Each structure stands twice: as C-alpha cells, then as structure tokens.
C-alpha cells in the first residue's frame, strides 16, 4: 500500500478470529482493503487533509454487518475472548474522530439493522432499529403522517445509532428537543454480550436510568440496537420569520426573552455579522431566523409573541425570504470540499453556556480563534436555545503556515476549549468528544471522569469497545 495511517493499520486479527466472525455472520464479514479504507474514518475535518496527502486515519482489520442483537452479542463475546477492538459504526458522519478505529479491530456497521419496527399512533412513539439512516427515517415518518423533529445538518448522512451515541441535536431542537429528549426506551448490547431493554413508558422511578449511560458513550459502553422514540403528527402549519439586529447582543437578548415566555420556536438561529454576510448577503447586521410549526393557532400565538419581543430589541423585520433561503441551503455542505484542496484547514466547534456568560463567551472565543497565527475566518452563530442558556457554533478556517496542518488545527481547538472552560461553558453541546476533545475532557468532567472510568471498567474490563476514546488523554503523532 502506498499510504500511511495516522493511527492503527490494524490489530492483526488472525485467520481463526476472522473465520469465527464469519461463522456468526456468514454473509457479513469483509477484510478487503477497499472496505477497510472506507470504514477507517469518520468525517473529522482534519482527516480530509490527511486523505489528500495520502494519509488515512486508521485501518480496521475487518468490517462486519450484523443483522440482529444476538449476532452483536456473539461478536462482543468473541472480542472479549480474543481481546480485539469493536467499533460501532452508523453512517460515519461524526466530526470529532469518534468512529476512527485507532487501535484497529472490527468495525461494526449497523446499517443492516434499519427497520422501522412499529409506529404507535396513540402513544406517538416509533420503534426503530438504530442502523437506519436519518433521512430515510424522517421520510418514512413523513409518509406515515409524522415527524421525529430531529433534523441535524447531517440528516442525509447520519444514523439513529450515531445520534444516540453522541447525543446529537438537530436544527429544530428548540421545539422538539435533542435526541435524548426524544428517546423513550432502548435495547442495547453491552460489551460482555448482555442484551438490555428498557420499557417504552413515559417515565419510571425505578432507580437511576442506567440504560441512558449509552447516550453519549460514543460506542465505548455498548451498542444501541433499537430505540423507541417520541414522534409528532406532521405539523399543520409552518411559519417563517427573520429579523436583523444591530449587534449580536440585541439578538441574544431577544431570543432569551422569547425563551422566558415559554415560547419554543422549532428553529431559532442567530448569525453574527460575518455569517450574516456569508449566508444572507446582508452587511453589518446580525440575522435571526425563526421557524414556528405545529397547530396553526399555537403557531400564530408564537409568531405574535416573538414579533413583539424582536421589535422591543430593535429587530428589523426581514419577512420570510431569509428563512426560506436558510431552509433551501441548509444541507448544501460545500466548504470542506472547496477549501481543503486549497490548503485551508476548516472546522466547526460547538459549545454551550449559560445566559449570564453567553455574550462574553462568544466574544472571547472569537478573539481566541483570531489570535492564532494563520486563522483567516473566525465566526459564529447560536443555534440551540434554552431558558437557561445557548449553544454557540463557531467556524474557523485558516492556513497552517509554518506548522503542520494538525499543529495548526490543534492550536485553534485548544484556544477555543480553554476559552470556553474559562468562561464556565461546556466544551461540547452536541458533536461529542471523539479524538479532538479528549485532551480537554478531564478539565470539564473533573471528578466525573473518575466515575466514568469506573463505569467503563465495570462494563468493559477488557476495553474492547471503541478503545482509545473518552478517557485517554494521550495523543499519537499526527504529523
């Protein structure tokens, strides 16, 4: 092979193990190089630059395609017996390196488990296998007259399992909640092969909801195989609005007051001046996009209340057009394809912070990015809102100049992470930890990291599930 691997080029599984995997999944095991090349990565932006330079993040030893929880349980028991890593894989759209098989092993592609098992109209719940693609799920729900309301930008290229594994959030989350809010119950395979199931009931008081440890575990504590999710009747009406503000402070205040009124637009997004120019071609203003949907009378009420509040904070009514534009272009992801081949390093970083620190955190992180030599673009928007605070989503782009691409990338990330923690924020709102945030996990979790390690040790004593993630601070040489 004429390429390098940044992490592992495989854990050297012997033929006997491969044969045993084939006996579990006669039709579902591949060791061919082309498959391993495609599965040895996710959508971590720095790895795109590596690809162009002929460097692959990692190679697994094999890719397997289980068809049911029992097969996964058998794979896990085999992994414990022989000590090889197992990395669950949904659609590979994660942006922090979470699915990269850094120690080789077996990629567990969940896509064959993609059925919508049942839809409960009375209880507004759908039971779904987790290998299903997000857009496929949403389209089939729409066809049946419902929506899940989970519409991340990765909708077209991500899976339900991936959403659960990294605690994802969608563009319509302010109304419908994040994936953990949508989850009613789940089935999962634990690292030792035990299959657990919780009950599809609205709430229980039966001790800590231990099954929820799977949420955000990024494949390190188990594999979620099936989930029962809340669904909603497809909205009868959708209203689009846009306002511009003199500055981001006014825009943030307007949204904070909308939240205080207990009004939850499905979509609220504030773009800073740079991003308002970029996305809407409007100079020196900050754009607020609002999308309300649901029952027509409730939507009208939300429109009225939001309009009054936006006016109070000097918002200028821009009509529907900017929101229509956002709806039309929200899945047109071009930047990495356009700028990576030109030598630019791009990424997006999301954090969350309470309202009291929100504005100063936004400003501090923008300054921190700009202070790194080589940074060309440093901008941000707010995209998920709560009565308690907000998620900021930053974009940086630049040129490494006298550093390696990874050194530049790492430096900007570190600047953002440090600034976020200094202002009391959380280092991730919904992309997760993966590889890039590991270094900062201890600073955020503090004593909870100790607890997490105990849980990991109890559930996965042989560290077979997605090893090298969540609690390992060491980094390899990334060149």
């Amino acid at each position, binding site marked *: 092979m004429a390429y390098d691997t940044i992490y592992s080029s495989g854990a050297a599984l012997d033929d006997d193990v491969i044969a045993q995997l084939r006996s579990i999944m006669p039709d579902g095991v591949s060791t061919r190089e082309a498959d391993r*090349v495609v599965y040895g990565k996710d959508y971590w932006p720095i790895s795109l630059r590596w690809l*162009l330079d002929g460097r692959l993040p990692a190679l697994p030893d094999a890719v397997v395609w289980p068809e049911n929880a029992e097969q996964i349980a058998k794979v896990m028991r085999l992994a414990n017996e022989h000590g090889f890593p197992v990395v669950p894989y949904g659609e590979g759209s994660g942006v922090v390196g979470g699915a990269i098989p850094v120690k080789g092993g077996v990629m567990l592609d969940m896509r064959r488990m993609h059925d919508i098992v049942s839809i409960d109209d009375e209880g507004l719940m759908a039971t779904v296998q987790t290998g299903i693609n997000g857009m496929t799920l949403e389209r089939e729900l729409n066809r049946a007259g419902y929506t899940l309301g989970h519409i991340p930008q990765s909708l077209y*290229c991500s899976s339900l399992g991936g959403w659960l594994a990294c605690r994802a959030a969608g563009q319509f989350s302010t109304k419908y909640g994040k994936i953990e809010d949508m989850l009613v119950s789940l089935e999962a395979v634990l690292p030792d092969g035990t299959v657990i199931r919780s009950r599809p009931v609205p709430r229980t008081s039966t001790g800590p909801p231990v099954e929820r440890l799977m949420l955000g575990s990024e494949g390190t504590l188990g594999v979620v195989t099936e989930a029962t999710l809340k669904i909603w009747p497809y909205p009868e009406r959708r209203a689009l609005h846009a306002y511009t503000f003199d500055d981001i402070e006014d825009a943030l205040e307007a949204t904070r007051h909308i939240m205080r009124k207990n009004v939850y637009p499905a979509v609220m997004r504030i773009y800073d001046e740079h*991003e308002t120019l970029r996305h809407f071609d409007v100079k020196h203003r900050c754009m607020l996009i609002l999308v309300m949907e649901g029952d027509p009378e409730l939507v009208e009420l939300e429109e009225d209340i939001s309009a009054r509040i936006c006016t109070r904070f000097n918002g200028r009514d821009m009509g529907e057009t900017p929101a229509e534009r956002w709806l039309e272009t929200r899945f047109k992801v071009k930047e990495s394809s356009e700028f990576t081949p030109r030598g*630019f390093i791009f990424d997006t970083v999301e954090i969350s912070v309470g309202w009291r620190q929100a504005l100063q955190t936004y400003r501090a992180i923008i300054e921190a990015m700009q202070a790194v030599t080589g940074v060309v673009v440093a901008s941000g928007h707010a995209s998920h809102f709560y009565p308690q605070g907000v998620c900021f989503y930053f974009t940086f782009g630049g040129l490494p100049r006298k550093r390696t691409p990874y050194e530049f990338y790492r430096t900007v990330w570190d600047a953002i992470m440090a600034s976020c923690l200094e202002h009391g924020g959380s280092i991730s709102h919904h992309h997760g930890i993966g590889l890039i945030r590991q270094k900062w996990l201890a600073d955020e979790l503090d004593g909870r990291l100790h607890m997490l390690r105990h849980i990991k040790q109890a559930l996965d004593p042989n560290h077979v599930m997605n090893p090298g993630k969540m609690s390992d601070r060491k980094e390899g040489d990334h060149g």
Partner: protein
Amino acid sequence: MASMRKKYGWVLDAMSNASMATRAVALKQFLRGKKQYLSKTDSHADLDAVIKCALCPNMCKFDCPVLAAAQNDATSPSGKARLAYLIETGRIDSSDAVDLIYACCNCDACREWCPFDFSAGDILRGVRADLVGQKQMPPEAAELHQHLQEHHVLHDRAIRPDAARQADVLYYMGCEVASAHPEIAKAMTALLDDSCAMLPEEWCCGAPLYSLGFDDTFEEFARHNAAALEESGCSQLVCSCPTCTYMYREIYPSIGVDLPVEVQHSTEYLHERVETGALQLGSLGTSCVYHDPCTLARSLDVTDAPRELLRHIGVDITEAYYAGKNTGCCGRGGSLGTTHPDLAAAITRQRIDELHRANQTIVTACPTCNTAFTSAGADVTDVTELLREARERA
C-alpha cells in the same frame, strides 16, 4: 470575477481581522492551492470533481439505490470517490476496488442533493476510462465491449424493419426494444401509421460504452449513428428508450458529434401529436402506477408528458411516494445488470416493492426498466402500448 466576489466575498470580509501576511498567503493559496492535488494530466478523470466528492460528508448517500442494496459504505457515492482518488493517485491497487468503481446505476439521484450538481455516474465515468486504459475493467465490461464491437447491438434482434424508407420522422427502437420488446416497436409504428422511417441495421446508441469508460469505441458508434441518421434524410429522431434519447440529444454533441435532427423521446413526440390533434385516442378506464425512468425524469426532465398521455386515455394514475425526480432506479441503469447482476436485481426488487405499494399494474416509458421489472415477475406495460390500445378504441 464578479461572481467569484459575490460567492467568496464573505471570506474577504472575514479576513479583515487577519494580519496582512496571513491575508497575502491566504489569497495565494486560494487561487493556486489546488494545483498540488490536480497535477496529474494524463487522466480521463475529473480529479477536481473526484476530490470534491471524496471530501463531502456523503450528503446524497441516503438516496443511493446501490448503497441501499449493497449495504456497504464502500458503494456510497463519496466512498467510491474516496477510492477513486486513491486509485488515481496510485495509493491503492485498483484491482482491489475495481468492482466498486463500476457499482453505480447512473440514476443521478445523487445529483438531486449535490451542492456541486455532480452525479456519481459522471464522476466515475472518467475513472473507468482510466481503468479501461490500464485494462483493469471488470471482465463483464470487457466482454460487453467485445460483443458490441462484433455485433453493434447488445442483444439479438427480435424485430427487423423490412427496408429503409424515406420519412421526416425516424423511429429508433434501441437494443432493448429490438430484442426484448418488439411489441413496443409495433405499437410505436402503429401510432405513427407506419409512416416513419427506421434504420434497417440499427447500431446501439453506445450508452453502455460511454458509461463503462470505452471512450474510443463510443465515439466510433456515435459517428456511425450520426452518419446513418444523416443518410436517412430524416429531420426528427424519436426513441423509445430514454437513454438512447439522452445519448443522441445531449452526449453526442458533448463529444463533438452533432446531429442535424431534433431528438425526442416517444412520450414527448406523442404528447405533441395528441396536443395538436394529430393523434386521436379513446379511453381505457384503467389504473396504474407510473414509474419514472431515471434518465427520462432527471436527465431529460420529462415527467409530465407520460402522465398527461395516460390521463388523456382515461388511465387513473396512483402515484408512488417516490415519483417524478424523486423516482427510484429499476437497477439496470449504467449497465449495472451486466457488471453487478445481483446488486441490480436487489435494486429492482426494492423499486417493485415501492411501486406495488401504490398499484400492482406498473406502466413505464423505458424498455430497460420494463425488462428489469418483467424479469422479476412484475406486470409492466409501456405507455406506448396503452396508447396503441386506446387508439384502437378511438
């Protein structure tokens, strides 16, 4: 330049906070940075497009019928582009991935979702041409190429026009009609009152050669067909097959083979004749689901004409959920039925299941889709056949 400024003006604005030195380097990189990755000059592949697709998060993958059937990310559009990049740059041995580079049904569903307006089929075509140049194509593709070179048609003909006739309209059957669906040709000629010309020795339009990467042979076929059409003296070419239509109308001119005739698909031509009153039809009073052939709906943008024709003859259309430009592939596009018959059959089954949710009677306007569905046991009729039946009731 003005469009560049509009498109990338935000970058200039964002750069206002960067140092002069950074801005200077950024501008230089922006204008020239790509060259280091596009230095290969002897390639048929559009490496810029390959790279853009390989670096995309795979935003079209949910609608890729090949991925849905193969259930392997290596068959996804961006997965194949990634492999194509590594092959084109000599990083991986193409023999390990060659079947994946040919695992595409050219349905263009991906183009509907692509911010660059790419389709995997277009991107892979150049890569395949490079593989052909290295004699690395799959054996099935090599055999098909040899067969076409020897016989000039895909399959043995079941129907042959008696002799050349001079007429303004030349009806071109295409390989699939000539071999597997003579009833479509009979219906078409009957609708034209047997007044159309036909080529006594039709050659394949060359679509399989084009999509599989046999560029030189394709050009030979295109030039032969152009000469045959010119010799026929016709002013209008009507095809039963959407892919033939697309080849003659769009692809021949793109390689410098211009045709001195107007090219239409049969449904476009017959729709015009109905609109002008030249074709009188009765009513059938049946119902069906209409399957949009990918090339007709997406490449030729023809979705209304067949539906209007069907409604005109009293056929009640029960629409499939995925219809029009959101149609699903029959599985046989891009010669997938030749290179990957099992995969093609799986895609066919997916589409039949989807169509049957709407109606058990499938009507389409593509002989290749017709063959795919019929081979899987479905009840399929061509729009032309129904029109002929309606003509008899007029």
